[in-house]
């Protein structure tokens, strides 16, 4: 490969304009997930982030030192402000989902999520981390260019034509790369451990009481099945990390990844984790394919195409 072809590949990959529909749909689902995350936290909000909660702000700052983007450190130390932060974050996530003042709200949602994580990092799981990272790159994406109130307003005012305006996908690519890196790093971390290579890892995972959700069939616990499961997880994580970029494999791998995460959703109690990850699969679907399936769904549900500008 010559340097010239490398530069060409780079430019095409990050800057060849494409439909913003996948990233717009991702924005909607992302907003829903942030709302759901906040909703699930609400009953214990002050227990986790309040002044008299499980973790005081001075301890949090001592354990995680350094300058950090954390609204809790600049707000007055009172539960009223902590409560207020919840409601502002919720409103911002709703507006992001709707696509109103999209850019501003994507920035606000990222700042809120980062602040929550910085305030109490010890209750977050990988899904939360992925939401935070995807939120960072979403700030730079044309997330309000379609399926948004912003776009509707621009069309009504005659600033924009009703058709889809192609956009540079570099920020979307960064979220895609972040997702594939997530799988690849998980794979690389796992192959360092003997239980994954020996195929006994799932024996431990599925005997941890804290993760149990729905009952599992007895055959699943047979050593051969657990071994096959451990190795299949490794193979799939490697594939979703590397082979997902090969166009011919992409949709097959996305389907397998979907089944994999649905199985984990059924069998392990880590609320929203699987959905946080699965949402980003949308970004790997071709814009035209996504439009066709959305039109199909609309026809099926409403019997006709709606007038909403895509």
């Amino acid at each position, binding site marked *: 490969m010559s340097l010239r072809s490398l530069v060409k590949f780079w430019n095409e990959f990050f800057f060849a304009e494409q439909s913003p529909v996948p990233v717009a749909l991702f924005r909607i689902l992302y907003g829903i997930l942030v709302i759901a995350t906040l909703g699930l936290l609400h009953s214990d909000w002050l227990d986790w982030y309040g002044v008299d909660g499980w973790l005081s702000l001075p301890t949090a700052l001592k354990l995680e030192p350094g300058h950090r983007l954390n609204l809790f450190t600049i707000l007055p130390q009172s539960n009223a402000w902590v409560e207020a932060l919840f409601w502002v974050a919720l409103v911002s996530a709703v507006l992001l989902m709707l696509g109103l003042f999209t850019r501003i709200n994507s920035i606000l949602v990222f700042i809120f999520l980062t602040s929550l994580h910085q305030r109490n990092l010890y209750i977050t799981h990988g899904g939360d981390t992925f939401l935070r990272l995807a939120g960072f790159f979403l700030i730079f994406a044309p997330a309000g260019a379609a399926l948004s109130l912003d776009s509707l307003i621009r069309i009504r005012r005659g600033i924009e034509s009703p058709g889809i305006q192609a956009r540079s996908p570099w920020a979307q690519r960064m979220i895609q790369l972040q997702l594939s890196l997530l799988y690849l790093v998980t794979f690389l971390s796992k192959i360092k451990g003997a239980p994954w290579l020996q195929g006994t890892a799932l024996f431990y995972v599925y005997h941890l009481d804290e993760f149990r959700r729905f009952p599992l069939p007895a055959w699943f616990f047979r*050593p051969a099945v657990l071994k096959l499961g451990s190795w299949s997880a490794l193979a799939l994580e490697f594939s979703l990390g590397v082979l997902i970029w090969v166009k011919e494999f992409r949709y097959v791998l996305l389907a397998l990844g979907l089944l994999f995460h649905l199985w984990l959703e059924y069998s392990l109690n880590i609320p929203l984790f699987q959905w946080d990850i699965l949402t980003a699969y949308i970004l790997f679907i071709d814009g035209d394919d996504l439009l066709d399936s959305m039109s199909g769904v609309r026809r099926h549900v409403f019997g006709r195409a709606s007038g909403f500008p895509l």
Partner: protein
Amino acid sequence: MTMQRAAHKQEATLTRDEFALWYRADATSEPKGSFAEKAKRSVIHLFIASHLVAIAFWCVPLDSPLIPLCRDLVRPYFLWAGLFQSWDMFAPIPKGANTDIEAMLRYGDGSQKTWIFPRVEQMSLKEKLFKERYRKFADNLQRDELDELLPDAARRIARLNSSPGHPVRTVILVRRISFIVPRANGIYIAEPWDSHILLGYGVRPEDLK
């Protein structure tokens, strides 16, 4: 099909075709616009390249002396911007034991009580959705490197279990553990529970305010 829909569909199709033509002709070229546009594109190139390299060095678990150097270099920015990350769920070795936390409480009048930290496995399906964070927090409370979490937790438990006339005076946090042992035939038999003390904390009056 309404006129409006037909027109919309035609417009969308034409736009797509135009994109395809434009794609082949111009997609890989640099912007031909103003200096400002070129400068903006250059900044984006730099942003993408630096973030890709930094994120890869931050989280790829390879043993190379270069990796800690790069991590140290980007650490201030990653910590500030919230780009820090680790992807090691159940890796490299899954947790090999069931654990939980209890608190032995001694009150001012000499009475005692055992308080059990919320256990997700004993919750209903709905509760599990809302209270899963307790699982993660309990796991972190047991990590040696996070010992500093324990006094805050002890104070919180004291507050939860005190009343003005009946204050908690001592909190002893106890970790209970039952190892998961794989057997040749694949059968799981729960091992007996062991206990050990994580922290003994003398509650001060100001802790209860």
